[in-house]
């Protein structure tokens, strides 16, 4: 005996496998032609800089002229031995953890709520939640600094007036509070885009599957657990990777709000790299060293991402 859901799934049409060979290539020739600009731009502005940075990492180079002072693995050794690099890497990783374990589930819950057609003004809610995404980070930095100012900022005034605290909180100036403050701002700012990802994923769940589940007597929670989540799971993996990558590369927020301070308590790898490549206080920038830091960071990111692969395979498989 089969359930309605199984019958619906069996009926789903199997996509036709694309034809291969010269005929197919000729047929799609114009598609390839239109891809050329993208390939050129992607190659020139993404692939080439990436490959070049691997090469530069082997030189003591200040970014002017051609790199000539070959230092082998010295830059890599210096990066790996740098406490400041590992501290920055940990902070970057904490940004990712916050995004994955706080932002991702919260956004999913809200997306499920906002995906309901019975909810009035849901487009307005979506807009409001998405606004921080399009707000300029530099402006957010200024506004946040004013709001959180321990000497008369609005947040501290409210907390003091309400009796919740008896001393102003130094949100951005305390080495123990600055990072959690930035994490909260990052989650708030990135929330809208994660929400949109989830909404897009939820809208791929076929209505007939949900209707079939309802006919089979499944309530909201059972439908969510046995229909919605399994269907969106492959997309969830992509969302997780996107959010992980985005949060690991947090730069503009840190740069705009704390510049990595106080005492490097909020320093992340991108600001660490930026300091060595572009800090005007340096007599000569260390592009070679900064490139090595970038390569090490890239490899570490790859390793962390690959570590998630078995878990993801299991989730998708199940």
């Amino acid at each position: 005996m089969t359930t309605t859901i199984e019958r619906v799934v069996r009926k789903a049409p199997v996509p036709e496998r694309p034809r291969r060979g010269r005929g197919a290539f000729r047929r799609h020739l114009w598609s390839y032609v239109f891809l050329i600009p993208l390939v050129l731009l992607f190659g020139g502005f993404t692939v080439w800089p990436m490959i070049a940075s691997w090469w530069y990492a082997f030189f003591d180079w200040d970014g002017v002229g051609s790199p000539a002072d070959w230092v082998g693995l010295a830059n890599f050794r210096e990066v790996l031995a740098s406490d400041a690099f590992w501290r920055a890497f940990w902070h970057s990783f904490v940004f990712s953890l916050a995004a994955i374990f706080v932002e991702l589930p919260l956004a999913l819950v809200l997306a499920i709520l906002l995906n309901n057609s019975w909810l009035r003004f849901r487009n307005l809610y979506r807009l409001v939640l998405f606004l921080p995404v399009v707000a300029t980070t530099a402006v957010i930095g200024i506004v946040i600094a004013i709001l959180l100012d321990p000497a008369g900022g609005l947040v501290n005034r409210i907390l003091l007036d309400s009796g919740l605290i008896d001393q102003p909180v130094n949100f951005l100036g305390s080495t123990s509070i600055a990072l959690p403050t930035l994490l909260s701002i990052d989650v708030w700012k990135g929330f809208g885009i994660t929400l949109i990802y989830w909404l897009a994923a939820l809208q791929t769940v076929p209505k007939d599957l949900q209707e079939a589940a309802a006919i089979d007597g499944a309530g909201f929670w059972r439908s969510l657990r046995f229909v919605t989540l399994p269907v969106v799971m492959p997309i969830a993996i992509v969302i997780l990777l996107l959010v992980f990558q985005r949060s690991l590369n947090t730069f503009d927020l840190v740069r705009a709000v704390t510049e990595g301070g106080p005492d490097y308590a909020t320093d992340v790898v991108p600001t660490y790299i930026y300091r060595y490549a572009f800090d005007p206080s340096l007599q000569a920038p260390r592009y070679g060293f900064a490139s090595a830091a970038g390569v090490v960071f890239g490899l570490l990111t790859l390793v962390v991402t690959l570590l998630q692969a078995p878990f993801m395979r299991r989730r998708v498989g199940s």
Partner: protein
Amino acid sequence: MKIRPALTVLTCAVALALSGCNLVGGSSDSGSAADKVTVTVALVPDPPGASEFYRQQFDEFEKANPGIAVKVVENPSDQQLNAVELMFQQNRAPDVFRAQDDGMDRMAARGWVAPLDEFVTPEFLKRFPEGSMDPATSGLHRDGKLMSLPLVWGPWSSLRVFLYNEDLLKKSGFDGPPKTWADLERMAAKITADGHGKYFGYAPTAAKAPAAEMLAGTAVPYSVAASGIDFRTGKPATSSPGLVEAVELHRRMQAAKVMMPGWESWDGSRAFKEFAAGKLAMYPTPPWHVAEVRKLSPEIKLGITGLPVPAAGRGAYLARNKSFSPLWSMSSQSAHKAESWKVMDFLASDAFHKAYYQKFGTLTALEGAWKAEAEKNPDQAAILKVAAETLRRAPNPALASKGGQAITQALAAKPDLKYTDAAVSSIVKNQPFAPAAAQLDKDLQTFLDKTSADLAAKGQEGSAKDLTFAGWDPLKDFTPGG
């Protein structure tokens, strides 16, 4: 898939038009008269209002020099050097560019700075105070060649003043500013307590606590406060009691919650904004903050005095180790050197300096442009008085010898060896500074030994000897070779 010929033609036309936007129509200079020479000047829009000021000034220049058009390229202050370097690498070098202090050396080391000696006339040199353009001490010469022109008054870059709000001090019963560090600590604590969170006694000026370095400059030779090396001995001296105490003073005030909270994330302009808003009673600063405070709060009871000194007495004066700070340089790649010089000549003219002084309140390199007026202005007169009382000539290894130049440049490329981060860490984490200072001294010595050995291996000069000026007394004016 069939593509219609019309669509193909349309696509090609759009592509050509778009590429043409970049390849053909990119220049904005083509519209001007063909006989005009365009001189490109790369500068920074700093201080606020500089963009409009420079454009207005260059418009005046163009009226007086109809054959020259000045094109201004603006870059953010902290990206100016990188941006100009990129322009050079792309063969789009500006003719004239702003490169301050070490930045000029960075550009000169790449061979991008043209010597200006061929253009300089006796009349031009007479504009500057007597003796200030001596190649050995001007700060603008390298290897005896004039490589840059100044904008600001010689002492302006080295001078540090102490600002205080007379009203806030009076509210706590103080008639005048602190004379010593002990006075400062006591007064700041009282003012902060009296302020009840509405205003505060003191702040260390910005997130990197530059105030610690400024105050240390009254206790130890400037070279110790600036780079951790004592130029009397050529040896690392971060552990000098005066420097350690300057940091410890700030650590104590931070631990006692005397300093204005939030300074740990302040940028360079926050201190004068808080001061002008009446929320900060005292802080040490470079003199340019004075005009900014006045702009924001014209009526504030602003006191300007010298920095407080250690209770045991002054150990050093602030150092003036060159006559001027370099600012304007000419590109060695300029195809219009004569016209570029005319622009530089204008930037060093009495009219330009007068206009700059009047617009920004900055004392400029040509004293004749502002001196009479400044002496009548209470704020500026106070700055001049502090400069006369607290600045002394000091040795400059970078100007004294090639070896000194090589070592100081190598040191400037190693910010990790400067104590600033360790000092901030000590202050915000309430940890003693002395152990970190001792470690830094060891690292500095290792660096000096290694750099000397590397330079020697390359057959170049540069050792601790080049950083040693044995007869120098930081309480007296230094005379090169004297």
